[in-house]
């Protein structure tokens, strides 16, 4: 399963209480879709699942605003 699918599945099943599917470019943060507790769960999930260390300087909106953004950030850390 590729990075985006892994993320979408985690967010859909574990973070959001909703049947409506989320798209990979959907804004996860600005409209309170995911709250502050779940954001940390998401950050931890990304770090553990893709085995990358996420420094505080990287915990910024640009890197976590959408599944696409997270995927790009993970790819940049892996290369």
């Amino acid at each position, binding site marked *: 399963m590729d990075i985006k699918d892994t993320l979408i599945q985690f967010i859909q099943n574990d973070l959001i209480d909703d049947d409506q599917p989320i798209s990979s470019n959907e804004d996860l*943060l*600005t409209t*309170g879709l995911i709250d*502050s507790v779940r954001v940390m769960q998401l950050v931890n999930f990304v770090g553990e699942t893709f085995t990358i260390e996420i420094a505080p300087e990287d915990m*910024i909106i640009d890197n976590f605003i959408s599944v696409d953004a997270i995927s790009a950030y993970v790819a940049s850390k892996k290369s």
Partner: protein
Amino acid sequence: MTYLLHQNILQQAERAPHHVAFRCGREQYTYGELAHKMQQLTAALQDQGVERGDRVGIFLHRCIETALAIYGILHTGAVYVPIDPSLPEERVRFLIQDCDIQILISHPSQARRLRGIVEGEEKLLAIIGLEKNWTIPTIGWEAVWQYLPAAAPRQLETDLAYILYTSGSTGLPKGVMHTHYSGLCYARLTAQLWELQPTDIIGNHAPIFFDISTLGYFTGPFVGATTIISSDAHVMLPTSLAKLIEQEEVTIWYSVPLALIQILQSGTLPQLDWSALRWLIYAGEPFPPGQLRALMELIPNTRVSNAYGPTETNQCTYYHLPTPPLEDTPVPIGYLWDNTEMLILNDEDGQVSTGEMGELLIRSGTMMKGYWNNPERTQQSFYQHNSASGLRHTFYRTGDLVQLDEHGLLHLLGRKDRQIKTRGYRVELDEVEVAILTHPQVKEVAVFANVSGKDESKVLVAAISWEAELPIPELKTFLRKKLPVYAIPVEWINYPELPRTPNGKIDRKLLREVALYK
């Protein structure tokens, strides 16, 4: 003469129409734009039958539309009621029913949450801010911009302007009623206290259902400054929030301590330039002195203030820290500000002597009118004082215990309901918790009092979670060395983990309710 909150927008629109009033992310309103849009929103609201005095709900996350919703509702002569979109559905329904709300202002991103609420709620007549095929009319913003601007109805400063719901430690939430008068008193006092100018950039962190938002949303327009509304994304990611303060060159920042502590802990502040920040103001909770000191040492050119006040009075005291905290004792809540007076009363409602601890009562221009639809709670919370002239003056019982020191500084000592009388003895619940937590096998504990028995006496109850469970008799033996016998909880309830509120605090209310039903 300004006597209504929305008059500030109209006046600034004439004075400086191109000056930015509010900005959130990449979206912004100048004063000219906001004045025009709020009048169009008035037309749309009036078209939906909104009349003077009606309560209109605002169901929005942190976004630019919050400013438009607030001022549009005020300009229509109605009362704005902010609703936290993350509340459980039944709590949202309670607010809608309690306030008799028929119209909500919202946003397409809230569609998921609104759908369930709309389906079960007959009281709602329309929603402005999104377009859906639902059972009630929905009016998108594009449709609102088709309206011609409408005039405001005749209103008085003593008319209701907004209702903020507070949860409190017991019972259902209470709707704190504020008027244009109390809102403008606050705007005037804060503008004076921190010398706010049109050139100021106010950093707003709080959602509009917390009264900390009134600095950015009311005082900003009062002086003609620009208010930066932090988005939910910024609030959740402290690194981004710290960058926002630098980027926007915020001159006045106002938030709860937690936001600043998170920024401090991210370790990213030393690389940022906060030199534009001339005042950093915090409120809502005490700021742990060690962390406040660490923060202040990183921003030596920024003055720091502690602001204190319950939602019922907005703000009532201030303390400008002369230096970073020198010791680890709590920062004082400071001095009463203008247009405010206080009483410090003992348990018999007699005035304490100087230096003695007592409950703080406040009378001020910024105080609430009462609790919406709740005359009993309103009466309980007010105290009628016979003034020298013979007139009765109404004071608000804050429920906070304070002490006035020999320098005239007020110190916050705790909540009155955290100090209870059991079996004739006075007990500080926080001290009991601290004592219990010293046992290495205890993970978390919350101590509270419930009434018990026919004589309605109070018994101490402890909700406890363990690192490694210990039989209660053994814990009590341990506690007898630290606490008087009457301060040791009588009832003990085990939890794998103590339940938390959305704010991350221990949900003491739930714990009490569970204990009552046992």
